[in-house]
């Protein structure tokens, strides 16, 4: 059907070109449209046309969405932000666990000392250490909550991986553009300098800071 429409239309447009070159009268355009519609009426219903328009709108929408997803820099989200967020959350769990164990060490030492104290004092010390043991429960709950968040982030990461493989060429183009921009060697902005606490493996200790400071 499409080939027939294209052939009829082409013949009419050719005739118009021969008559008036690139300048076409409005009534001639109307004639082309009427001719086109009459050709369509036998082959395509109003419902078909509506469906075609809807499909075309849908295709436009998908195309725009694809562009917007490419602009999101999904590879960057995945490699930098999500990976970093899960590392930070793991670091929170590790740090609070270490702190909890240090508190428990101290509480156990107080318990040992309480055995040498008179009964009244020992009872008070035991009451205090019980409160410490009870309060230390928080670490388990916090750890479980953070584990749930990490699982949610991993789920998002998997979905992003799907997007990355679906829109590979667009993302590669965006990456190339950013790399070119980074090569310009501009100084980091104030915002770019605010990274918060570093993960233990990546952090400089005070000696390294002193060395950097004194060499600068």
């Amino acid at each position, binding site marked *: 059907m499409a080939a027939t429409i294209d052939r009829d239309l082409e013949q009419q447009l050719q005739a118009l070109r021969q008559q008036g070159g690139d300048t076409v009268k409005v009534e001639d355009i109307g004639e082309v449209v009427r001719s086109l519609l009459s050709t369509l009426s036998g082959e395509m219903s109003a419902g078909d046309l509506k469906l075609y328009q809807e499909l075309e709108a849908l295709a436009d929408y998908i195309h725009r969405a694809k562009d917007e997803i490419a602009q999101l820099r999904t590879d960057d989200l995945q490699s930098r932000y999500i990976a970093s967020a899960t590392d930070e959350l793991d670091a929170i769990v590790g740090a609070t666990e270490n702190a909890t*164990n240090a508190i428990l060490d101290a509480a156990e030492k107080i318990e040992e000392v309480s055995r040498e104290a008179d009964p009244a004092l020992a009872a008070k010390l035991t009451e205090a250490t019980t409160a410490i*043991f*009870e309060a230390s*429960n*928080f670490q388990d709950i916090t750890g479980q909550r953070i584990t749930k968040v990490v699982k949610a982030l991993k789920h998002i990461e998997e979905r992003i991986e799907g997007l990355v493989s679906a829109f590979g060429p667009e993302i590669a183009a965006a990456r190339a553009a950013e790399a070119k921009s980074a090569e310009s060697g501009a100084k980091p902005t104030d915002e770019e300098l605010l990274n918060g606490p570093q993960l233990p493996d990546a952090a400089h200790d005070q000696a390294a800071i002193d060395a950097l400071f004194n060499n600068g």
Partner: protein
Amino acid sequence: MAVDKNMNILIVDDYKTMLRIIRNLLRQLGFVNIEEATDGSMALQMLRGGNFGLVISDWNMEPMTGLQLLREVRADAKLKGTPFIMVTAESKSENVIAAKEAGVSNYIVKPFNAETLQAKMVSVLGEF
């Protein structure tokens, strides 16, 4: 019958800090023979090889969960009468129902305090 504070108690949790907390609270209650396992399968092996008067177990562990451990214990002719207290952050009604159906002796929701631990132990073992 008086509770024997020298009986063996098995505490099961994949989180070592929690094992330490429960051990300390039990010690404050006068129980001294406390052993630890970090998942259900390790606990089951220890239960089959030993003589325990109480199991206090977490639910959410791998590879064998606390609920699976409970079912194994209740299905084992030698172990089926062992008192079993679940200590877990799982607090939905369906969890409590599932644990009850599997034969749990009592159920403690984390975070918990020493008073709750003692009260549940008394309800399972009797006054001590």
